[in-house]
């Protein structure tokens, strides 16, 4: 098994709608989650059992978080789209809707997928939807922090996420190459650094 996380749009169910719209529909969200998690299970060599009731509650909480934080200015919407997946990751990790029936057969314990398979599968799900959506909307490829396979970060992530759910949002942002505001990583308005297509980011790129 590779140390690099594998995620591909091919794992997502088909839809006639833009992905940013489809992802906010429970039936597509659930189908996508089941497909991605199933594929990750094959990769790790374990079967995941999904709790649909928990997943629905997570989905509703994610929608609520999006509604509360959605920015009004148009120029911030692209950045918010990029931020949204870290909120989904936070909700998934705070009440994991999957569990494995045994230890992964094909992932070593010192790899993230072997160390914490449930959170790893949720991370791949969020990365899959995130990268496919950004590619579709803005033709931007998602790059992952090379430190993603470092077990020390996963130790720290697991410990901190259990004490403070917001930590998961920061972990995911770091994964995407953004420096989180560790005081309030789940708050879009207090984000630090440059985010997708924000005016200052465009200036830097130019």
């Amino acid at each position, binding site marked *: 098994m590779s140390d690099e996380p594998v995620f591909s749009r091919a794992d997502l169910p088909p839809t006639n709608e833009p992905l940013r719209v489809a992802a*906010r*529909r*429970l*039936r597509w969200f659930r189908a996508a989650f089941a497909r991605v998690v199933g594929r990750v299970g094959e990769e790790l060599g374990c079967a995941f059992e999904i709790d649909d*009731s928990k997943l*629905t*509650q997570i989905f509703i909480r994610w929608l609520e978080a999006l*509604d509360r934080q959605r920015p009004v200015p148009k120029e911030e919407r692209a950045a918010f789209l990029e931020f949204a997946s870290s909120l989904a990751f936070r909700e998934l990790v705070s009440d994991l809707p999957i569990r494995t029936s045994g230890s992964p057969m094909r992932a070593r314990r010192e790899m993230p997928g072997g160390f914490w398979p449930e959170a790893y599968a949720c991370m791949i799900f969020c990365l899959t939807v995130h990268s496919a959506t950004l590619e579709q909307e803005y033709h931007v490829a998602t790059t992952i922090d090379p430190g993603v396979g470092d077990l020390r970060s996963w130790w720290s992530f697991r410990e901190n996420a259990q004490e403070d759910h917001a930590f998961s949002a920061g972990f995911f942002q770091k994964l995407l190459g953004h420096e989180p505001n560790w005081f309030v990583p789940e708050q879009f308005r207090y984000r630090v650094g440059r985010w997708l297509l924000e005016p200052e980011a465009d200036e830097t790129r130019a």
Partner: protein
Amino acid sequence: MAMNLPFQPDPLPLREGLRRLRHVVRRGGETAREVAGGAMGGGEMCIASRLATAVIAEMERIAEEFDRMASRAARQAFGHEEDLTTTLDELHGNAPIGPSLASTLYTALSLVLKHIGSDTLFVSELAAREAVKRWQVLPGRRQASGGQLAAGLAMQLVDRQVIRGAHVDPRCVVAAPAVRPVTIFAVMLWLLVARSPEESEAALISAADIAAAIAERVAFVFAERDETGLVALLEKYRNNV
């Protein structure tokens, strides 16, 4: 195909009567099975309970067969099938829509009750038809938004007591007082969503799960008869089914 009859009797009262019979037999059968379950060992008690269970099973079978026959007769007489893809927005301003919408409501409400684990309650298609009739003549309907149309229909369904019965299955995922509001809300949400025949049932299940996840809020707006609040909830979640 519709039969060209000079006189077309209304088959719904007969169908509803048979459904009630089936419901009563089924509920009685469940109770009898519970009682029979307590009769241990052999002897006269056991023979009596086996006999009762066999008779009830046969009555259930007969009632279900009558229901199927009555449903077929209704379709032939009216020449319509339940339309599980039409949205309330599409129905806006169309007439007459009574029989097909009532039939769709019956099917959808029954499916939602089954999904949330409370098919011990009875859905009245006659009451649904009456609710649709009254909803069609509500003032301001032509100017109403999809959410307002759905909220108006929801209140009519509540008032006509389209879901009947007192016993909520303890395995139901929704608290007993919220079962009726959640079921009606789920079907209204589903009626607001554009869907193909292939995805219709998945959309209904999705609507039911959303309704169950926000059961407290749904039950509150129904209990308060807060139609504005109901419209807001429907509009909020219609794009998430």
